[in-house]
């Protein structure tokens, strides 16, 4: 029998929780999150790094998890869409402002690209000084690398403004 894989055991903190997984060395991070760790909120739209649907935050920076191997995140911290909201300590969840904004502004239709947009925008907004009002150029830059086939982007851009305004109030 031909055995193609060799495996490694990696330790990675996902959404604040240390996780261990034994994965083939060729396993994409996107597949490891989805199939080994059961976090299916991260979606795969193209597997060649163009659409951005698989975007997750690795050590604070948005990355395309289909262009990264799972073994590369050994020892890293990964945030996925499942970790975007936080616990309200009363059995419920508090949505991230960008999640709230997407719902309020009808920034999603089929929802398949949405986790990638949410993670990209969350990283973008969290990485800026939110006491300063966001400009149209910043919004364009923030959403300009992800594909959506449903919305035509108008409401996604609106949602970024909405989320930035909410984060400004909190800043």
């Amino acid at each position: 029998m031909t055995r193609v894989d060799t495996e490694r055991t990696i330790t990675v903190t996902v959404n604040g929780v240390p996780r261990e997984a034994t994965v083939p060395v060729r396993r994409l991070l996107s597949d490891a999150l989805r199939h080994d760790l059961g976090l299916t909120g991260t979606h795969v739209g193209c597997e060649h790094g163009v659409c951005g649907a698989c975007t997750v935050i690795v050590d604070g920076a948005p990355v395309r998890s289909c262009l990264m191997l799972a073994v590369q995140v050994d020892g890293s911290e990964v945030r996925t869409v499942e970790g975007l909201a936080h616990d309200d300590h009363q059995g419920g969840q508090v949505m991230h402002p960008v999640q709230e904004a997407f719902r309020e502004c009808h920034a999603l239709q089929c929802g398949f690209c949405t986790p990638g947009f949410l993670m990209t925008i969350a990283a973008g907004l969290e990485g800026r000084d939110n006491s300063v009002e966001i400009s149209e150029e910043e919004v364009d830059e923030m959403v300009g690398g992800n594909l959506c086939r449903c919305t035509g982007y108008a409401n996604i851009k609106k949602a970024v403004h909405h989320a930035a305004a909410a984060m400004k109030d909190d800043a």
Partner: protein
Amino acid sequence: MTTKLFGEPVRRREDARLITGKGRYLDDIGHDALAAAFVRSPHAHARITGIDVDAALEVEGLVALYTYEDLAGPMAEPLPVLIPHPQLHAPRTGYPLANGEVNHVGEPVVMVVATDRYVAEDVCDRIVVSYEELPVVVGVDAARAARSCVHEEIPDNVAARHHQETGDVEPVLADSPRTLSFTQYIERSACMPMEGKGVHAKWDADDDSLRVYTSTQASTSVRAAIAAKLQLSLDKVEVIAPDVGGGFGVKIMHPWPEELLIPMAAIALGQEVKWSEDRREHFIGSAHERQQRQEITVGYDDDGRITALDVHIWHDNGAYTPYGIIVPIVTATQLVGPYALPVYRVIVESVYTNTVIVTPYRGAGRPQGCYAMERTMDRIADELGLDRAVVRERNLIQPDQFPYDHQLTFQDGRPVIYDSGDYPGLLDKLRTLVGWSEAEQLRADAGARGKLLGVGMAMYVEGTGPGPYEGGHVQVLGSGKVLVSTGLTSQGQGHETAFAQIVASELGVPIEDIEVTTGDTRRFGYAVGTFASRAAVMSGNAIALAARGVKEKALRIAAEVLEASPEDLEIDEGVVQVKGVPGTSIPLRTVAVLSNPLRYAFDEAARQATQFAGPGDDSKPPVAPGDAPGLEHRDYYSPIRSTFASGAHAAIVEIDPATWEIDVVKYAVVHDCGNVVNPMIVEGQVHGGVAQGVGGALYERMAYDADGQLQNASFMDFLMPYASEVPDIDIDHQQTPSPLNPLGIKGAGEAGVIPGTAAIASAIEDAVGRRIASMPISPTELYDLVRNDSSEMTAAAQRRAGTGVMA
């Protein structure tokens, strides 16, 4: 009333799960399933001379391999021609796995099942298929020339010759004061949902039953296809569309080979099997649409009024015709748009090519028809030196002419009779919205900045909500929960929200109490599917009728309890009460308990209901003849014919004569889809449609080479619009309710995409003064066109040149 939500921009109920990663798309199902992958043809046209799997058998993790030889019974027969038509004289379909011959790159040849997808693809890499290559036909012109043929028995490559005429066109053309003729082309694009196709199947050997999840727009029909092809009883097959990551038409085609092969393998292996299409597979193994060659002759008078229109179209249907000639028929019949044409003849020849099959993509032939009609209007205006809007205005069907009978037969076999509309109203609104009268000033301003500016417009009428039917079921539970189901599926249109709004309004219950299920054959077995902008019209009305049935029954039961007449009762916030008599009421959930004479007191609701239950009449049965236990109702909506939505778009483009980059600086939409259930959702549909329209006009094309290889089968090379390519969209609304259905609605799903190519072609032509007769158009093609001295200059440009205005 607080529960009248029809027409309100209610925030979507599906979003809570989709923004938290809790959606359940196809590949999220079946964690432990075996994975399938396919060896697909690398050749566009070839005979298979051998399949060598020896090296593949070595791979650890391989579970099973299937070729055509492994198919039995109906699975070994050609795939169905879903929609036969007398004018489809030479239909051809492929096999689930290629039977000796392949007719396009991407056709499945071998199915591999392994422990995971990585291993399945390893196996595919080790399978050697030998081919003897055959001559390849690519593009409508090559198909038409027929120097070689796709299917040996069809030497002219013509699958169908669709023909409709409303009178004798030739003598009218001969007598027309003016005529003009031209030829134009439109290219292939594709739906490209962000989620590809996918199938998961699980066989329960103890129960002899099959459950299939598939990313489809038609779960009930996939169920019927699986039952027929795998020779199972329909009641032993369940098909469920989970969350679907976009469809746009490609998922209404069915059964895809994989929708049959994955269940077949699951049954044979007694294990769960799953296949998720990857992006390259989607490019070469799904469907495309739009390529046509259009030859148009129009007769008209000196005022620009059309006297006769004669159209001959060659439509590229790809390698096979599983979806019949729906797209050609839609082009032929929707081409006429909002115009009164005294006589019209159309012939569409649907031709085979060695490329991926052509099945509906949002618009489904309408963008091509609109392109033909609207570019004709532009040409007439140019010849006569008239304003393009004025020529359109003179040909419009007037508001007092409805119902307007075009004397044509639509895709559903019903007459093309427009139900309602106000086309002059659309045009007026559009002119105001886009600033049509200021175009020359804008052109001068742009010229001062060194830019070429042009404006264009296009109008359309869209047959929406075709039959034959959809159904709805509404049930009130003793808990107060209201269960709503319909058989058609959802791919992001917000049906859970829109249908809940309809039930909340019809029944008078809080929307929070309503749960909507779509596309699940366990809940509703009869449906047609989600396509042709029909979900709101068809299922919306069916669900409204079902809710009305529930309300009627609830009032009848409550009337007995409250000792009132049903006419004096109303339901508000889930409580049945006597109008104007607060306190004389009964909760709807209690009525639900009372509706069933068998009431074990399992819960508080049943215990409470007993206080209302009367002694009963000993002379009558507990369930009256014709009645049924339970507070539920099932109903169907089956329209006499389609409703016709309409709209008008305008684009302003600016072109940089240094780079010939085309920038859509303004895009205006006036939209009429009758009564609107949720304006937020409708506007979202328009936005998304316009983005696809802009993509189809400027960026997207399937770049096949002469060997039938798709050169741009990735998101790197097939250019779908990002946010940076989609213009801001100004929208104005008009509402002419449909008289054909109880809710007065027309469909809205496809409208946004229809006029994009026509309007943008018109704007580019206006900007550069050269005839645009092939779309989409890239900056390089525009540069070549403008530099080519033999390319035709528009009369408008010549007039402008004569007056010194920059062309």
